[in-house]
């Protein structure tokens, strides 16, 4: 998501599930959509049935998706950047890209400053000692007099981004793709031909990707490469186009929108860091400015940052937030370092008193986990189990007894190096919580649609909803603060909690709060005699949000979901007047009920749609019509650039905000199977290596190809959902247990038979399982050398029906991560494979 935000301005699926039916080409890569998103995948099938669309599947395994694809090409796990850069190179060299689109809707014409360079695997600005880049070396060049960005509309300037990109990808010839990815040249060319057939106004193609791209140490760069490809082909902002991120859970988009990770507040506002001591400093730091005066001016929508932040503070602290106290900014928790998953667990593992990796504070002594199963989901499970054993206390809120809740049971965890139960002091509280069907609320799907769901049944026994557990916890802490005091009492005591039932808040009320309301009468800025919104009314959308304390809004991005018209997430009107599947009266799609983001780019300079049969929005002479415009509705073509969230107003082929490079470059995984064919001295991503080195404990061991020559990857199955459906026997019946997929030739070499046992060993340990010997994993030659790859699904653990338990897949995975999102590298690591014994779990 970091990559999509850095390229287009917002971190989410650009189009929508239903819109996939409008595509001419559907490239499914980094995703096995048929397996993991079977209901959404129907729209790819729909495109195939109704438009004759071609489905292209590029995957290390021949998957369920490949089985219905028109074109399939294999590649070695983790080499997606090379493949995608190969496609960009093919598009440029064969002149199969959408030049006019690139000229008006991307930063291709922009000139980069003279400091920029790329040499032998390193971009300019790399600092060896910290392992970080100085990104000023990647900045746009500006005219010294006018201070406006230098732009060459002919895209001929040697330092203009189009030329830099062209030069950057020219190394990725079909031959080089074959050397790196192992994809036979003819199979790559077949894919290239089909994918680049959309590099024009008439045709349009989409990309579906998921965790098969995200979970790499180069995850963000893979997605950057894909986003760049789609911009080059002119496929963003158009029906049937886009870069469609398929989220791994039904509500993970909603969780991210509502601050699912430590570095963001709701609506992707930055979590303040300690050094930003007052609101003014914070806002100056985070609110982007632009030098774009030459080309289309930009809306630079993030210039509204102060409005979003102040309204969030008003929602958080209510009346206690005043102008005088900076709307309570001081009470907001500040960060002093990295509190992403692996860092939290590293801190935990090394203990509360130790010098820790994440921030400057000591590691945690307590841990609360809801709807999360750290023992299963974290990489390097052995470390996760050990880390939990260092805690004083842990609270687990779940509807099943999950592995995390019983991490102390040495009978179950011995195989993963878990300590003896007698040595563990952690006090574990297990709270029975409701499952998804036992509570109301919204799901925000991959397509950014907020859809209300109604409770189907009451939670069983004493189980409570998550919101009730959290509310009771908060109220108890408030009481303690009142009675006993404590540090920064305002932080807790001033928190607004104005629900009708404070111990079990109605989620409809929470959604109203997220939408926001007017706290005073809002006057029309153009005509102060007019009142546009009365005090107490729900806001119509984020356009009404203000920075003077007269509005409150829990998440500006979701604003418009619960207006005076009611809870729009509950809408179920499937009217589809233009037949493109936008369904504007079904649920609510952020932002502003817009179904296709960046839809201004779906039209040319004059505002005419690239393809009149599939218009996104059209300029009718007075206003933009069609989808909800991603543009000021009455701003004529030429007023503003199409990417309003980007300060410069255009899509970025070159994105200077990334931590590991402004353009995607092929790097091997942190556990590299082979030297980097392009620059052997810089084999894995240098920023990812620097990050992995921060994990210094005895559990953070990495394997090398001489000892662990087999590449391994992990994935999910249709029949199971993450780590908890192995508690459900109707699904266990469909997929009864763990297995390891092994190519036929490798199995033969190792004496492994289908249905027999196989053993996989990484630098972290060993697991065993049933061998699934298959033709679907192919022999791939990497730079003339045979490199094998195998894989296994992740769903099992030591809890649940004893007939359906299985090894923790992540016992095998390393403490390596992406340097932008800190997402673990679950998809490429090194192992050995051998025949397994009988009856060993």
């Amino acid at each position, binding site marked *: 998501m970091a990559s999509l935000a850095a390229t287009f301005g917002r971190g989410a699926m650009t189009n929508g599930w239903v819109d996939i039916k409008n595509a001419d080409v559907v490239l499914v890569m980094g995703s096995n959509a048929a397996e993991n998103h079977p209901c959404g995948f129907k729209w790819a099938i729909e495109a195939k049935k109704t438009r004759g669309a071609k489905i292209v599947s590029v995957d290390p395994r021949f998957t369920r998706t490949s089985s219905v694809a028109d074109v399939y090409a294999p590649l070695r796990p983790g080499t997606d950047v090379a493949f995608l850069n190969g496609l960009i190179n093919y598009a440029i060299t064969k002149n199969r890209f959408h030049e006019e689109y690139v000229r008006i809707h991307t930063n291709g014409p922009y000139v980069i400053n003279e400091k920029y360079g790329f040499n032998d695997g390193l971009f300019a600005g790399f600092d060896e000692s910290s392992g970080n880049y100085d990104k000023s070396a990647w900045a746009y060049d500006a005219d010294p007099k006018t201070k406006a960005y230098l732009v060459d509309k002919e895209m001929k300037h040697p330092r203009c981004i189009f030329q830099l990109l062209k030069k950057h990808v020219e190394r990725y010839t079909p031959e080089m793709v074959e050397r790196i990815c192992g994809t036979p040249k003819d199979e790559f060319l077949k894919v290239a031909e089909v994918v680049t057939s959309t590099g024009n106004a008439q045709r349009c193609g989409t990309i579906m990707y998921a965790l098969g791209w995200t979970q790499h140490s180069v995850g963000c760069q893979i997605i950057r490469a894909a986003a760049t490809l789609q911009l080059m082909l002119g496929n963003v902002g158009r029906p049937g186009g886009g870069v469609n991120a398929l989220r791994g859970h039904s509500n993970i988009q909603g969780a991210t929108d509502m601050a699912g990770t430590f570095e963001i507040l709701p609506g992707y506002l930055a979590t303040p860091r300690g050094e930003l001591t007052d609101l003014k400093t914070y806002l100056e730091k985070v609110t982007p400015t632009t030098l774009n005066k030459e080309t289309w001016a930009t809306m630079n929508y993030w210039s509204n940052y102060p409005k979003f932040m102040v309204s969030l503070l008003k929602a958080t602290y209510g009346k206690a937030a005043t102008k005088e106290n900076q709307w309570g900014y001081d009470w907001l928790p500040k960060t002093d370092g990295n509190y992403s998953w692996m860092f939290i667990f590293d801190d935990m593992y090394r203990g509360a008193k130790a010098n820790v990796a994440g921030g400057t504070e000591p590691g945690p002594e307590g841990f609360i986990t809801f709807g999360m199963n750290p023992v299963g989901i974290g990489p390097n499970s052995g470390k996760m189990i050990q880390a939990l054993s260092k805690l004083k206390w842990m609270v687990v809120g779940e509807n099943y007894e999950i592995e995390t809740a019983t991490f102390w049971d040495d009978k179950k965890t011995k195989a993963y190096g878990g300590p003896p139960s007698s040595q563990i002091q952690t006090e574990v509280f297990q709270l029975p919580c409701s499952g998804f069907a036992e509570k109301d609320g919204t799901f925000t799907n991959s397509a950014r649609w907020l859809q209300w769901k109604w409770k189907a049944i009451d939670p069983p026994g004493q189980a409570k909803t998550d919101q009730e557990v959290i509310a009771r916890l908060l109220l108890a802490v408030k009481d303690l603060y009142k009675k006993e005091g404590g540090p920064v009492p305002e932080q807790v005591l001033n928190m607004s909690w104005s629900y009708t039932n404070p111990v079990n808040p109605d989620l409809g009320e929470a959604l109203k709060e997220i939408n926001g309301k007017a706290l005073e009468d809002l006057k029309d800025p153009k005509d102060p005699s007019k009142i546009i919104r009365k005090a107490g009314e729900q806001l119509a959308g984020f356009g009404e949000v203000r920075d003077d304390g007269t509005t409150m809004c829990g998440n500006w991005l979701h604003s418009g979901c619960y207006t005076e018209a009611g809870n729009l997430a509950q809408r179920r009107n499937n009217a589809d007047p233009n037949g493109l599947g936008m369904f504007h009266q079904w649920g609510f799609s952020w932002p502003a009920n817009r179904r296709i983001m960046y839809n201004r780019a779906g039209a040319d300079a004059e505002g005419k749609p690239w393809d009149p049969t599939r218009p996104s929005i059209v300029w009718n002479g007075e206003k933009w019509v069609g989808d909800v415009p991603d543009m000021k509705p009455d701003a004529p073509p030429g007023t503003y650039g199409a990417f309003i969230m980007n300060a410069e107003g255009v899509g970025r082929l070159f994105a200077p905000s990334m931590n590991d490079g402004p353009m995607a470059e092929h790097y091997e995984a942190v556990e590299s199977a082979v030297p980097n064919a392009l620059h052997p001295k810089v084999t894995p991503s240098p920023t990812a290596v620097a990050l992995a080195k921060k994990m210094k404990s005895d559990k953070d061991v990495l394997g090398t190809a001489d000892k662990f020559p087999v590449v391994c990857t992990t994935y999910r199955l249709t029949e199971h959902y993450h780590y908890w459906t192995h508690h459900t026997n109707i699904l266990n*019946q469909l997929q009864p247990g763990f*297995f390891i997929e092994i190519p036929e030739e490798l199995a033969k070499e190792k004496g492994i038979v289908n249905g027999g046992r196989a053993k996989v060993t990484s630098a972290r340990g060993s697991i065993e399982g049933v061998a699934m010997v298959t*033709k679907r994993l192919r022999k791939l030659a990497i730079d003339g050398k045979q490199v094998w790859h195998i894989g296994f699904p992740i769903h099992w653990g030591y809890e649940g029906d004893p007939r359906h338990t299985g090894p923790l897949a992540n016992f095998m995975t390393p403490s390596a991560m992406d340097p932008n999102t800190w997402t673990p590298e679950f998809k490429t690591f090194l192992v050995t494979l051998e025949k397994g014994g009988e009856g060993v779990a």
Partner: protein
Amino acid sequence: MGAIQGFEIRRSSAALRGGGTMLRQQPTVAKYIDTSICIGCKACEVACQEWNDLPLVKTEQVGTYQTMPSLAPNFWNLIQFREIDTGPHGFAWLLRKDQCMHCADPGCLAACPAPGAIVQYQNGIVDVDPEKCIGCGLCEPGCPFDVPRYTARDNKMAKCTLCVDRVTVGLEPACIKACPTGCLQFGDKSSLLALGAHRVKQLQDDGFASAAVYDPPGVGGTSVITVLKHGDHPEWYGLPKDPSVPTTVSLWKRVLHPIGFVAMAAAIFGAIGHFMAFGPKKPVDTAKDAGKEV
């Protein structure tokens, strides 16, 4: 549950003069399976089991995505997964939903010696009436598709009913309802054949010259029609190339059966014949554990 009330019976097992009622005309219904867009998600497997209240089956991972080796008495709908080398550089993972094919000329019905135990409704659905089934197992060798399954627990045979209880009240079968990609459709057979022809044309245009609809004439056609990319190789999908009712069964049916007074003797003959050919009835007919409830 007996035969569904209100549905016209076309014919009935071991009945003189066919056993049909034939008062009303009802169009032949069919289930349409487009294997070229089936993603093998198994939603149909679960829907079948849940709608029909079939107990769970104990399965084990034996090196395949397929739930179990073949159909079971309490598992009437199974996606079969097959890895096939389709040519010098061709490879396919062929996924096909297996269940009763609801033949127009059903071998099971022909082989059944128990009057009214197997009926074929006017609309083409072939159903079992458990009250009348005597558990002889003769239907099994009668079926060219290896569908009927005998269960020792109740001494009955069981198979897909094409959700006749749902169809009777105007609903589509449970498997169809659950299918996310639309590779399963239900309706009037003639219109589904037209849909199949359209899809076959698309596949042929995409380079699958031998794409075809599988509706084998040897059993009079079936009420489960299947679109195959590789129509010249139904065996790649686990379908017989030219299925027909076994000669022994048709012989018995056509020649001996009409002679009413030898019907009973014929049944005994059939049973002995089956014993000689297949040995004694085993409680479990396929997987090691298939059919065992959990």
